């Protein structure tokens, strides 16, 4: 008996030893900067000359900053559209491409391809495609008699375009995750379901969906975090316009910190944002933990 506990003690010691370098780097490059940023959010730090403690002034200013609230409203609007669509589309793609048919690999590849392009490059191409008079999108719409809007320059359409472009780019990755999840559903379950007379929808609804719960939890959590941190596409596609309707919180943080040298204020915003992300992630966790299924 004694030798076993000795062995496990030895193992745990070795375990700690092996994770030491990672933890060491994690502390230096993540934990310490986060603590410093928290401190700086209570100062008027401007990167170069000032760093005085000013209490909660930054947070007070935050509460009174209409642009900050606008950016939050924008990312929430974006999230409400983006997250459900992302899950629905990537899951349907996964279910569709799960079947072993000829050419399915080609479709899988095509679905995943957009993920490989850099956000900025893809956005640059989409600006062109979305041009109101000469872009491919409106060109196609005009073939069926619809006059398309100025996608990126008109109010409700600009954010919709960003939702669309980011979806186009991210569903591929989530499709792969769902495909992996689907592979984890044992075939014999489907067979017995079939024997019990379940149709395709029923077996999806009562078997696949519950089994995929952890996958959905992962995908939705990552989408929430990603959505609240939206930056690249909004920056390239619309520069936050028109009328600040696509300005995101991260964009505003960047602008205030590096553009206006108000790093203390930018830090305060970053903490407010991370708090919001935390709240939504917890909410998502709660929803996914419930025994009753969501749909």
């Amino acid at each position, binding site marked *: 008996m004694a030798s076993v506990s000795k062995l496990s003690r030895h193992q745990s010691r070795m375990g700690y030893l092996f994770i030491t370098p990672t933890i060491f780097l994690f502390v230096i490059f993540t934990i310490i900067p986060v603590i410093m940023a928290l401190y700086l959010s209570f100062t008027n730090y401007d990167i170069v000359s000032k760093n005085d403690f000013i209490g909660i002034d930054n947070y007070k200013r935050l509460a009174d900053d209409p642009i900050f609230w606008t950016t939050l409203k924008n990312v929430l609007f974006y999230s409400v559209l983006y997250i459900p669509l992302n899950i629905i589309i990537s899951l349907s793609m996964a279910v569709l491409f799960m079947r072993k048919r000829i050419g399915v690999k080609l479709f899988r590849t095509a679905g995943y391809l957009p993920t490989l392009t850099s956000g900025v490059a893809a956005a640059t191409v989409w600006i062109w495609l979305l041009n109101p008079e000469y872009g491919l999108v409106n060109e196609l719409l005009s073939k069926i008699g619809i006059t398309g809007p100025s996608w990126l320059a008109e109010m409700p359409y600009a954010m919709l375009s960003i939702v669309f472009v980011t979806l186009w780019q991210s569903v591929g990755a989530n499709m792969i995750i769902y495909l992996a999840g689907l592979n984890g559903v044992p075939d014999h379950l489907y067979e017995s379901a079939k024997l019990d007379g379940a149709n395709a929808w029923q077996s999806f609804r009562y078997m696949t969906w519950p089994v995929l719960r952890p996958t959905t939890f992962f995908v939705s959590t990552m989408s929430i975090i990603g959505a609240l941190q939206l930056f690249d596409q909004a920056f390239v596609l619309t520069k936050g*316009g028109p009328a600040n309707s696509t300005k995101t919180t991260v964009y505003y943080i960047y602008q205030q910190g*590096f553009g206006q040298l108000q790093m203390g204020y930018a830090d305060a915003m970053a903490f407010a944002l991370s708090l919001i992300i935390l709240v939504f992630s917890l909410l998502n966790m709660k929803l996914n933990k419930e025994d009753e299924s969501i749909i």
Partner: protein
Amino acid sequence: MRKWMTVITAVTLTASLAACSSKTDTEQTKASTKPEATTAPASATAAPAAKAPVEITFWGDWGGEGEKQFVMMADAFNKSQDKIKVKYVLQEDMITKFLTAASSGGSPDVMFWDRWRTSLYASKNVLHPIDDYMKRDNIKRTDYYDEALKELSAGDKLYGLPLTVDARALFYNKKLFAEKGLQPPKTWEELETAAKALTIWEGDKLVRSGMSMNDNGLFNMWLQQAGGSMMSGDMKKTNFNNEQGKQVLDFWDKLINKDKVYKVGFEKGLGEGTDAFVTGKVAMTYTGPWMLSTYKKYGKDLDFGVVPPPTGPSGGKGSVMGGFGLVIPAGSKHKDEAWEFEKWWLANKDNALLWAKTSMNLPGFKPALQDPFFKDDPNWKPFMDTLEFAKIRPQHPGYSVMEVDGLMPNLDLFVQGKQDAATTLKKGQEQGDKLLDQNAAGK
């Protein structure tokens, strides 16, 4: 015993990992300075000479052609004397890099500087004033545009010399004008007439726009033409919520919504080669001298002319002056040498001209502008005429935020017909004043 060995290995492993991460940092900076190998051979041959020259670094964020032109100037300077050696270092994200360098050492000696930044940065004491040098070397302030020097000043101090000067003027398509028998417009009325005549719609598709109304950021120059100004005389509050501001918006409304000479978003996504002016889809546009080379390069069939901006209803002239300069960061260890380089480049007719002609920019040094290359060229001349009345952006650290986040969102709503002129100006003023206040220096 063996256990201790593993402990030691692990510790050394951790240490070496940490060392690695710090090493790659320095390696990266080294690598980023490497591409300027073009200057290296010169130093190799010069080195054995009696005294090693002082090496100074010159930061800029222009790559490609721009980088070659900067390196050429550095080389020319290095050849002109043997005491100082300048090295150009391309910094893609120059300002961010400079901020970290300014607070932690490693600052460059000379920096390529977008002048409007001065009012925000000078108050942080990261730039070195050059007034003493100017006095010592007898550099005449009259050799530069007042407005350009003003843009490089903060408080009573001057922080650099102008490298380029620019202002927007009206580009027009000569061929399209000739087809309709039109003359380039001199007033708002003529501008409207020409724009209306040149616009073509096919159903609800805009085929050709008479006048580009793409950039709401040009409100500043339209306002000057109407006889107004963006900010109050004391530089504390916005000053566009008045009759002049209304004149501009009414005129925009007429052009965009009644005459329909433009469609919001028309030019979005059209790059250099497919630029709406190059391809004749826009007959007139406000832009600066930086587009001359592009239009010449891509517009083989494009016959264009340039005229100073048309005047407003009461005859007001207006354009916004901008441009670049060279500044010496406060953290520089070789300020005297940096000044020698700056002076050689920006206070000497031949050198200023050399770069201006290669890079196709209007030089900030006035005597260089007297060269026939600029003075007698029909494309450069209108810009020089425009520069006579062009004004810089108001000098307030929060000006750009006020314009971009306070005013422009409201202008967006206005041109889309979602907000009337009075509300636009009122909300622009309220939000603008607030932003000015929040982003004032010392806050």
